[in-house]
């Protein structure tokens, strides 16, 4: 139970702040990051009630630069199935990076910067920490020379999440009034220049703040000085995202799972479904037409026992029919919840499923996701 050696781990710009705040540091995606401060459940609940600050600097912030908007969009649309041509300045979209077989290489968010931020032809991407170097290699092998992809290790990323995040951030800038869910723009927070997006991975309203590494500690100090804001670690981030029904790369989706099976059809734009023309399109569009064999679903189990990643799902005869990819006892849902893959014919709300945990059957039911209602802020039209 002793803490592992952290000698070779990378440190984010907020490392000292985590240690000073009592964070229990663990390895994640090659970085030393806090799994918790006081406790996962308290941090989870604080995020649902007020606002929590998460260090997500380990994620890869990539700037995509082409000669003009059309060229950059064409390059990105060749890589991903998202409809990016329809993005307005300051809008962002969730999508996936696919291989030729239609498997998911990573999931990512692509942003078209606000007009005042960047010249025409520049786009932003945020990719997973453990995949960022892999992604860049994969992308550069496919992209044309006129569009470049630069990993910005000089930038930190801070997520401020929770129903009172807008109130907390709004004390320092006016950008919170301008942005709706999945919109982004530049601002200045306590003298610190930041790119702010209204997005996150907790199911709550919230923001992600991209700032220079050198400014990150001061921004951390400014935000946690607010009684509404507490720092939270990777543990709470994981239980929050599971309640929100959101996938975790390497667990709920991998490079051998296509987005149709992963129930991520929304990551494929309607126009792109009709036109194709993205890596893996043949495989994915064939799968859209045929339907998946196995499908990602949410499951609620009876009782309090957590059913974790790797647990097998069995039918009435005891034959293995699927597997759990994420699971825990959820603090807000107050239930044992999980995500996993089951045959498409039983991937329907209300269908009973049985998981095996240490040789014992645990009864569950396919459930609607998210497990906890999402509270993203939609701007009035």
């Amino acid at each position: 139970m002793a803490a592992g050696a952290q000698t070779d781990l990378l440190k984010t710009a907020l490392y000292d702040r985590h240690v000073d705040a009592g964070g229990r540091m663990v390895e994640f995606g090659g970085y030393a990051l806090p799994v918790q401060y006081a406790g996962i459940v308290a941090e989870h609940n604080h995020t649902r009630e007020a606002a929590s600050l998460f260090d997500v600097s380990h994620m890869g912030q990539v700037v995509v630069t082409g000669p003009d908007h059309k060229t950059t969009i064409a390059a990105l649309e060749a890589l991903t199935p998202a409809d990016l041509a329809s993005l307005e300045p300051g809008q962002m979209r969730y999508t996936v990076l696919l291989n030729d077989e239609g498997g998911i290489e990573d999931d990512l968010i692509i942003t078209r910067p606000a007009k005042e931020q960047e010249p025409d032809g520049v786009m932003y991407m945020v990719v997973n920490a453990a995949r960022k170097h892999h992604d860049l290699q994969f992308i550069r092998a496919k992209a044309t020379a006129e569009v470049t992809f630069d990993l910005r290790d000089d930038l930190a990323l801070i997520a401020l999440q929770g129903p009172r995040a807008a109130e907390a951030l709004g004390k320092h800038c006016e950008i919170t009034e301008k942005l709706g869910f999945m919109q982004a723009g530049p601002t200045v927070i306590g003298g610190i220049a930041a790119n702010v997006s209204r997005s996150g991975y907790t199911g709550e309203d919230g923001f992600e703040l991209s700032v220079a590494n050198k400014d990150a500690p001061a921004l951390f100090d400014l935000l946690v000085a607010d009684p509404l804001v507490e720092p939270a670690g990777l543990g709470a981030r994981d239980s929050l995202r599971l309640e929100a029904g959101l996938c975790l790369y390497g667990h709920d989706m991998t490079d051998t799972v296509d987005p149709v099976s992963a129930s991520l059809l929304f990551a494929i734009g309607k126009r792109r479904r009709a036109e194709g023309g993205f890596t893996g399109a043949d495989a994915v569009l064939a799968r859209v037409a045929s339907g998946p064999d196995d499908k990602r679903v949410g499951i609620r189990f009876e009782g309090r026992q957590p059913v974790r990643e790797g647990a097998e799902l069995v039918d009435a005869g005891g034959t293995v029919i699927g597997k759990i990819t994420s699971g825990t006892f959820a603090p807000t849902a107050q239930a044992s919840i999980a995500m996993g893959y089951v045959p498409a014919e039983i991937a329907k709300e209300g269908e009973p499923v049985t998981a095996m945990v240490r040789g014992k059957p645990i009864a569950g039911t396919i459930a609607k996701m998210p497990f906890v209602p999402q509270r993203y802020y939609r701007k009035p039209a």
Partner: protein
Amino acid sequence: MTTRYTTDHEYVRAEGKIGTVGISSFAQEQLGDIVFVELPAVGASFKKGEEVAVVESVKAASEIYAPVSGTVTEINETLSDEPGLINSDPAAAGWIFKLELADEAELEGLMDEAAYADHTA
């Protein structure tokens, strides 16, 4: 009444032939919020070092091993509804099970308070 500890952070508090078993305060702190406890069956017998119970936090499951050999005489049913008692009061209300010791001499092989304090320092 003596309390002894294993290197895996279980404690056993022996009163005559009956030992009360739980996890140390150090262990509950390391595990974090306990959300579920899988209790043994009353009457089941275990040899020293065998897996008896499982304590699960939000993040992970941890096996609880029998600190000494014996037969389970009582389990803490309250933990089914309030597993957090292991966090808030590991030495008292958060006990996990009681067992009748098969061999009281086995206690001598475990750490006393001072040795355990050194072990976790």
